[in-house]
């Protein structure tokens, strides 16, 4: 049951869905959720290769760092989204395209 290819396919599906969310959703929070999906797919790959073709646990360490980066990214990005909402009264990523502050 535990074949490496199954995990890789699941990870590819998650990556494609996350990419689709990033590209096509207009709500900034939905875009953030797509980014989380992409990071999770990368993590699945790291952990799967750690189990199936590595001799150390370095993949787990990298996965932990990815989770740390994802948490920091979510916090800062949501603060930015709240600021955009306060300034523009919308979080549609197409409406907040002005470069003037």
């Amino acid at each position, binding site marked *: *049951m535990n074949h490496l290819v199954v995990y890789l396919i699941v990870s590819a599906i998650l990556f494609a869905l996350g990419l689709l969310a990033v590209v096509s959703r207009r709500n900034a929070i939905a875009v953030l959720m797509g980014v989380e999906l992409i990071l999770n797919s990368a993590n699945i790959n790291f952990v799967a290769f*750690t189990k199936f073709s590595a001799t150390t646990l370095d993949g787990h360490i990298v996965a932990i760092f990815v989770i740390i980066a994802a948490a920091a990214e979510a916090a800062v990005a949501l603060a930015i989204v709240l600021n955009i909402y306060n300034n523009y009264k919308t979080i549609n990523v197409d409406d907040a395209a002005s470069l003037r502050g």
Partner: protein
Amino acid sequence: MLFGNLIFYLFVAITVLSAGVVVFSNKLTYAVFALLFTFFGVAGLYVFLEADFLAAVQLLIYVGGVLVLLLFGVMLTNKITDVRISQGSMNRVIGGLIALGIFGILAYVAVTTVWNSSGGRSISETVNTIGILLMTKWLLPFEVASVLLLAALIGAAMLARRPRSRRESS
């Protein structure tokens, strides 16, 4: 072994289907709650990969931290009276084609490549080994990650603060 097989594919189905709901749902709150099930399914896959510490970390940080943050974001950026928080999407056809193409490439590579696979060795004592690795081989990235978290904390607090006190401080 058949029962474990069933559970494994159940987790795979949970992960993939709820990720689909995250992407294609029109209601943003539904998408956030579907993301909860996606994270839960990924944690289950970690358990099948014998990464028990990572599964616990996934549940604690993603479900307990990131998801609550996203829910706060949804609640704060939409009016409470607006029950149906719907957000359309654009370029769905082109984006779908691109995503499908990338999935095809990734799946083709994953299937056709002959991986250096040992058939799955059994991993024991992940917490012990991860702790030793973090304090020896990965010590510098560990410290950098702590500085990154501090910077994210300060930056998020600075950005999300009400700009009302700017006049008083300057």
